[in-house]
């Protein structure tokens, strides 16, 4: 395969069989970015993920799902019915030559096909099988169905997001699925390092519910110490000063996020307010402990500082607040959407967005690039996501050595 970069990648020469769905696909996206040869295995007819909105140009088309593009670029793609007897044999053969298999089937499904860890590892002791499921491989809820929304609920996150007068809220970006895939990547790389040392593979069992719970740490700590069961807007009830931790402020043309009561830095906020003719009262001695010595301050002081900061923000545009605030050493930033991020000069200077050619669309699309910059083994951005069965011939004929007739016959019977 032609590579854009000649630099080595961490997973150069490693083969990943990708049997994930939405709930774990971020894991194989990371492995592909680290340089693995990820073979996306789809059922004949294409993976259901191809039907996920949004679509390029807005019109539903299984070859134009931006959701599919985002999670599957850098991968090759084959079709295979792994439930068909011949399909099972082909998957076993592929697994013999693979380093990783990542899957999201309900617990027990691969076992029922004779493709569980014990079956696959018998002929391939180096294989790492990573299983990403809602609740883990065993246990009373292991057969429960889930979605990103129900995982956010079961992991405790939903209950604390939103306002007191609304139902628990949701993030329109599938944070539970992202967390599951990312933490699966941590576990998979741990297993990979161990294999580099010992030659031994193993089974990595990821619970998406537990992945969601990582973001519950602060809630959980308060519960353990004080027995508090926080609700939405929970930080206002748990930390007296916390309404002021990360509030969103209305600027003239959008929103900023600011932390005027972040310590250290309250004196810088006072100076900034003062330069705009605001907060003369903050120079009274009663404020010194809070503003200059990092004392907690009274709720009234915290509320007032916030109010003054809101008045400052209301006078200016986002651009007039962020750069000047940051140059004063105040914790402040824009509340960005994709539009601002795509035009962000800092990200542009770091070359974050990367063009990926889509010949079928007549041009290139810009994707988020490296999530971290590695000096010797750069993150790979190489090729668009595969079309259905795009690499069937390459893999089945070129690598497994199937004859043209065998291939045609498998195609005809719907196995590939």
């Amino acid at each position: 395969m032609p590579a854009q970069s000649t630099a080595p990648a961490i997973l150069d020469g490693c083969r990943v069989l990708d049997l994930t769905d939405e709930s774990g696909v971020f894991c194989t996206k990371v492995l592909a970015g680290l340089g693995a040869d990820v073979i996306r295995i789809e059922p004949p007819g294409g993976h259901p993920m191809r039907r996920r909105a949004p679509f390029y140009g807005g019109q539903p088309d299984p070859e134009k799902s931006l959701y599919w593009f985002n999670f599957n670029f850098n991968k090759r793609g084959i079709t295979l019915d792994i439930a068909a007897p011949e399909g099972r044999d082909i998957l076993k053969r592929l697994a013999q030559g693979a380093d990783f298999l990542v899957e999201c089937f309900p617990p027990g499904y691969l076992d029922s096909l004779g493709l569980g860890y014990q079956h696959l590892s018998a002929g391939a002791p180096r294989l790492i099988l990573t299983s990403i499921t809602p609740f883990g491989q065993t246990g009373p809820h292991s057969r429960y169905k889930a979605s990103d929304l129900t995982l956010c609920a079961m992991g405790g996150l939903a209950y604390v997001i939103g306002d007191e007068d609304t139902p628990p809220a949701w993030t329109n970006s599938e944070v539970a699925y992202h967390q599951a895939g990312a933490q699966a990547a941590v576990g998979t790389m741990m297993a990979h390092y161990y294999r580099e040392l010992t030659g031994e593979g193993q089974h990595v069992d990821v619970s998406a519910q537990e992945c969601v719970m990582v973001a519950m740490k602060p809630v959980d700590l308060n519960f353990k110490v004080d027995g508090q069961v926080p609700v939405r807007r929970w930080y206002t009830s748990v930390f007296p000063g916390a309404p002021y931790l990360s509030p969103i402020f209305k600027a003239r043309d959008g929103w900023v996020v600011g932390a005027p009561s972040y310590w250290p830095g309250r004196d810088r906020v006072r100076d900034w307010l003062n330069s705009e003719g605001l907060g003369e009262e903050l120079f009274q001695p009663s404020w010194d402990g809070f503003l200059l010595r990092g004392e907690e301050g009274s709720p009234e002081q915290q509320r007032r500082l916030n109010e003054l900061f809101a008045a400052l923000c209301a006078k200016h545009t986002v651009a007039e607040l962020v750069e000047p605030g940051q140059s004063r050493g105040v914790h402040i930033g824009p509340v960005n959407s994709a539009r601002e991020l795509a035009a962000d000069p800092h990200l542009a200077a770091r070359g974050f967005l990367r063009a990926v050619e889509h010949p079928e669309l007549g041009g290139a699309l810009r994707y988020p690039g490296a999530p971290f910059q590695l000096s010797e083994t750069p993150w790979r951005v190489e090729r668009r996501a595969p079309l259905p069965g795009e690499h069937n011939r390459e893999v089945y004929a070129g690598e497994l050595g199937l004859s043209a007739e065998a291939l045609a016959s498998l195609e005809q019977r719907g196995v590939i």
Partner: protein
Amino acid sequence: MGSHRDVLEGVRVVDFCWAGVGPMTTRHLADFGAEVIKVESMTRVEVCRRAGPHRSAPPDQDSSTQFGNYNSNKLSVSINVKHPEGVELIKRLLRVADVVTDSFSGGVMERLGLGYPQLRQIKPDIIAASLSLMGQSGPHSEYRGHGHILQAMGGLNQLTGWPERQPFAPALAFTDYWVPQLWATAIVGALAHRQKTGQGQFLDCAGLEGAIHATGTAILEFTANGTVRARSGHRHPGYAPHGIYRCRGQDAWCAIAVASDEEWQSFCRALGNPPWTQDERFATCGGRAENAAELDSRITAWTQERSAPDAMRLLQQAGVAAGVAQTVRDLHDDPQLKHRGHFWEWPDPDFRKFTFEGPAFQLSKTPARLRRPSPKLGEHNSYVFLEVLGLADAEYADFIAQGVIN
């Protein structure tokens, strides 16, 4: 376990990380057996040691539960880096290190004489990971902030909550719990690469760039179509119904997500096929989405009659994705989490109220373990300086007398 070594046994990490996001990254390394030596200072105490809630009153520098969680399984040394000998001592430690991590703003490690070029001279195959808000280069590399700022800058708040209300935080500081997953992956990957090739490297980990990976499709949606994804409440283009519904009891809720028309039929059966479910407007996913408000009020009439766990069980028995919006107390009673051993317990009487959550992933041969609670400040000075570095007793005493080790 038993016959297997820990994954990162023998890997030594010199850890300058402070606050939350850096320490959570290196906790992954410590949980899987790395010897993570946290370099601290008595004169400028790690901010997280002051962060509540504390397990004892009055609080002290060893009582923070946040610090306790983020730094379990680690060791602590206290060195005065302002003292010229302090930096020299750190350099000696780096000679026997595999990984060095920091979460300072750009330039701080360089000013200490510990930038990557210098580190490489000390230890040619060192893996140096700088974990920062904006990265080491670019016009905003000096920006200050923390997780609350970062999640908004990364685009998450704009996607959280209700279209008619202001953007909302998707947790207290979601990115604090997200980017460590990416960064730990990168560090372990770099270790694997070094194992294979002998080559170390420098990792420039920018929180902003990691944060954006949690909203990747929304970015592509804009760069490809020019459309800006917005907060959608509970609406999801692939599911209907899709919501969190009020149940019987105080502030009790159950999330329900129906992915297909087939699942819709299962959903209707679970409800006993009441006449309203036969309404043809609800027969297809598109129709249910178009009439979501009415659908949601019908469903709420059903959920309100039931406790959230009962609603979940009835729907799960029919094969429908449903889940209680669990409170933190519910999590501690969750039978699945108990079965998985999610919460680690430490038997030390000082920690009687304290458990640590283990990793959300289990490795069949080499699971993570809790070896020790978080260190007291400087707790491992004598181990690290006498045993790891092999200082003579007199030399060690001299460093203490000079205030180099404090």
